[in-house]
Structures are given as C-alpha cells and as structure tokens.
C-alpha cells in the first residue's frame, strides 16, 4: 500500500531519520520538537497517564494509537496545558512547558483540535477562521473602537482564511453559520482554523471520526501537506488504515503507558500491539496487505 507512494524531500528526510531510531517505548529521536519525562496523571485511584519518556520527531507525522481509555486524549490535554499532571516535565521546541497556560502554548506554535469538534456554531465559517489568527491588534479592546487600526490586518487575515477555506473545500460555506456544517465539515473547519495560528506542531485528536471515506482521502492529503510545509503533526486515531497510510512513526499507548513505538509496518507486526489493540484478525489482514 505504501510502497508506490512517493515522498517529498521533507517527508523522506523525516522517514529516513526515524528509520534509524530504536523500536523501543520512549525511543530517543535525532531532532525532537516535543519531549516529555515522567508525565503522570491520576484521577483518584486511576492512573490515566504514566509516560516515562516520549519524543516526537520534528517534521514528521506521528500517530498516537491505543485502545479506548489508554490515556491518549489525557496526554494531549497535559501537553497543551488544558490539564495539569501530578508529576512530570515536558518541553516544546526546547522550551519548558510546565505551568504554561493553554492559550500560551497555542501562541508558542503548538495548536490542538478536539475529539468532540468545537466549532463555534453561532459564528460564520469565515469568522471562525479569522478568530484563529494570532497577534491581532483589534483584539485589544482599546483598539476595537478604531477600525482604522485593525482594518488592514483584518483584510490580510481574511485573505489567508479564504485561501485555507478553498484548500479545505469549504469556500462555498464561507458566510454560513458554522452550526449549519455537517460533522465532517466541522472537523475540516476546526483543522483549518487551527492552521490560522501558524503552528509548528499540530495536534489532532481523532481527525477522522465521523468523516466519510471520500473526505478521509482528502484529509489525508491535507495532513501530508502540513508535513511537507514543515509542520510536525501528532495525531490520535483509531482508523488503522489511515494511520498506516500517512504516519511516519507510531506510538502505541495502553493503560496510560507507552507500550510500543515504531514505523507503521513494525507496529502492525508487533505482537504486544496486536494483543492490546489491533486484535488477531486486524493484525493478520494488515500483514496480508504487506505481502
């Protein structure tokens, strides 16, 4: 399946770098953009996340998979500051991210989407997009009254938003309320809106949930496009076809821990992963595709 795919230079470099990595949980990467140590989060007696070490290679597409309740979304929340771990340190782009408020992480270039899509339903699609832009002068209340201060910037933002909307095939919905979009279109809008922040690391929480097969194909293309533009993508997904199709590296979590890491091909052969997540049948079918 992946054999005939051609890779851009960026992608090929990332894949080559990862090819040389160890296939062990918490394997060190040559150029990690995100690094975490001893991240532990307990909810009462339940340990939701207990990650000894995690690294995400810059410029790669890394998938985070695992059974329900494995702690993937909790890890996302911890890394982006939406939740605070009991213990642990982590850094993004060499900067320690402990006690950094969620809005600051976004401003630093680490943007996330949500498992349950958060489209701002009573704002129009284009307003949703404009909201994503950072450093807007008009977002200071004392500037708000004087439209001459922010009108120029607003025009630039709108232009960028329109380009992104076209790319995500939402151009025709531009002036509709976001609430009138379908579930899949909302996923697209949320992703496009996240890109308005000009991120370096995009964290997608189940981007494919509830998206129809045709749209999945184009979403895959978009995500690959992000990597080719130099962004790093970390995503949570249950759709193994997609994981296999687009990711350069896969991290598998179960019961809060990282149990395996490797390239998609390694993972689909890993007996521990098949036991914990893929199931015997799924593992076989994937291996058949390889042969």
């Amino acid at each position, binding site marked *: 399946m992946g054999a005939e795919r051609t890779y851009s230079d960026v992608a090929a470099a990332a894949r080559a770098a990862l090819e040389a990595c160890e296939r062990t949980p918490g394997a060190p990467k040559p150029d990690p953009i995100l690094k975490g140590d001893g991240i532990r989060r307990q909810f009462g007696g339940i340990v939701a996340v207990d990650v000894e070490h995690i690294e995400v290679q810059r410029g790669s597409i890394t998938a985070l998979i695992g059974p329900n309740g494995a702690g993937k979304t909790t890890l996302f929340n911890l890394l982006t500051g*939406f939740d605070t771990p009991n213990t642990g340190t982590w850094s993004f782009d060499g900067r320690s991210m402990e006690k950094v408020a969620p809005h600051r992480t976004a401003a630093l270039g680490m943007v996330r989407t949500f498992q349950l899509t958060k489209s701002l339903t009573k704002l129009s699609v284009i307003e949703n997009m404009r909201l994503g832009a950072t450093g807007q002068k008009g977002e200071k*209340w004392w500037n708000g009254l004087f439209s001459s201060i922010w009108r120029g910037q607003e025009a630039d933002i709108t232009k960028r938003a329109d380009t992104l909307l076209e790319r995500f095939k939402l151009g025709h919905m531009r002036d509709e*309320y976001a609430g009138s979009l379908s579930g899949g279109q909302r996923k697209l809008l949320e992703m496009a809106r996240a890109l308005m922040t000009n991120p370096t690391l995009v964290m997608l929480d189940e981007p494919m949930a509830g998206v129809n097969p045709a749209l999945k194909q184009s979403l895959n293309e978009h995500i690959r496009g992000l990597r080719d533009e130099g962004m790093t993508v970390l995503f949570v997904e249950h759709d193994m076809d997609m994981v296999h199709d687009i990711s350069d590296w896969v991290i598998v979590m179960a019961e809060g821990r990282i149990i395996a890491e490797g390239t998609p091909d390694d993972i689909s052969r890993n007996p521990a992963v098949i036991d914990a997540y893929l199931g015997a049948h799924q593992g076989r079918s994937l291996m058949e595709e390889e042969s």
Partner: protein
Amino acid sequence: MDWQLIFENSLKGLIGINAVYFAIAAIGMNVQFGYTGLLNFGQAGFMACGAYGLGMTAHYFDISFWWGIPIGIVFSLVLGLLMGVPTLRLRADYLAIVTIAAAEIIRLVVRSVRFKTYFGGSDGINGFSQSFRKVGNSLGIQEADEYGFWPFRFTGREIWTLIVGWVLVALLGFVVYKLMKSPWGRVLKAIREDEDAVRSLGKNVYSYKMQSLLLGGAIGTISGMVFALDRGSVQPDNYSRDVTFYILTALVLGGVAKVSGSIVGPMIFWGIFTFMDNLLRQVAEDPVHLWNFTLMKSTQVGQLNYILIGLALILLMVFRPQGMFGNRQEMAFDGR
C-alpha cells in the same frame, strides 16, 4: 374609563426615565450575557456603585460633584474585579451565584445602621443633583415649564434627564456596537460558544471575560448614575435583586446579542408595564363584584401586573425565544 390618559401614560412610559436607565443597564448586561455568555445577576450592585459614587461625593467628600462620575466607575471596576477574580476561571453558574450575592451584600451594607454615617442607612443620600440641574438651567431649560408635544409632554426637570439619558443610550449603544463588530467582540462571541476552543487558539479567555465583566459593569454604573440624578437621591432598596431580573427580562424581550434589542426591549417593557398598570388601576377604581366577592382591589394591581408580565414572558420564551430583534437562525443551533 379614560383611554386617552392610559395611552398617553403608556407612550410616555415608552421613552420615560425608567426606560432610559433600564436601557443603559441592559446594554451593559448584553455585553456580559448576550455576547460573552457571562451570567451577571448582580447588575443592581454595579448600578448602586454609580449611584453611591455620586451621592457620597456630593455629600461627604469636599470636592466637586462631578468627581462622582469617575469615583462611581472606579467603585464598579473594584466590584467587578472582586467578583471576577475568584469566579471567572470556574463555570458560568459560579459567577451567577457570586454576583447575585455580591449585589445583595452591597445593598445590605449600605442600608445597615452601622454604616449610616457613610451611606445614610435605609434613607440613602438625598438632594445632590443641584449641580446637574444647574447645567440644564444654564442651557435654558426651565424646570417648571412643559416641553414637547402630545403625548410626549414632560416638565423641564424631566426633559433634561431624558435628553442626557438618551444621549448616553445612543453613545453607549454605538460604542458597544462598534466593539462587537471588532475582532475583540469576535473573541467574546467565540467565548460564549466554546471557551476551550478559543483557548486552544491562543486567546487568554480569562482576561477577555474579565474585560467583558468590567465593561458591562461600568455601563451598569452609568445607568445607576442616571437613575440617581433623576431622583436626586439614592436609596438602597432601589438596587435589589428584582431590578437585575427586570432588566434581564427587558433584554430578553428585545433580543440578546443585539444592541437594538437591548435598547428597544426596555422601552417595550416599560410601555407595556405602564399600560397594564394604568389599565388595571382604572379597572380597580370601579371594582368588579361577583355576588359578595370582589374580583380585584386597587391594592392588588401591582401584584396582578407582575403576574401578567411573567405570563407574557413565558409565552415569549415559548413562541419567540430570540426576542423581538434576535436572529432566529442564530438561536437554532443549540446542539453542540
């Protein structure tokens, strides 16, 4: 039954001083509730800040009466910070609880016997609007003269506060309208929809909510000042919980998240209120008897009026939840 008097009074109620101070307070509440989704049930507390700011400046501080305006606004900003700092990080319901309690605390403190020397107890502070009236007189408005045309005939005393009041309504309405059209207003509306989404896009939600609370509160303060200047007095019981809820009712009647709604809502509210009050009063003058049972006494007019207003509001919520000016489409997507 004197229909002409009823209609005359109702039309005057439409643009009277009650509508003015309700409209200003509603513009403020609209910033918080309509645009940002903050449940401030303590608008009466902010209004009291303005009224007492003016009253205390005129009576106890040895400075010009006009300093009362900035002092009142400073009071309201302090109140807003006190309310907001602990609660804005929490869910919306906590702010509602804290604001309603804070407004009551203010009312009970200013009417307490202990602080009578500062706030005048339950009598409040009286007779401080001379400086304000003098400005009107110097512009040639005679207090005793009548101005206007039928049905809008007001005394010079009334017309001066009405002019100032409506100018303020227009000014504040315009400011809020412009702000809500700006990127700043867009962030507020987005916070109303989903805080976490806004946070994930790099906006400091806490700070924006605080700005919204303070702006709405400061506008509420101005409303309290207008009311106090019209009466020439502040009395603690004019700033009780029900005032906040009537303003909220008027706002919902007009339509939330619309500046026009927050101005026309209070006008309609007071128009209908005055109409019902006058009508019921005239009915009660000649009480209806069923055998030896009197259907309505004049002392029951007030209660019945509130019952009917409540009923009207329930019907409005059922059949027109977006209010008079609200956007039906905007109301339609409530499932997330």
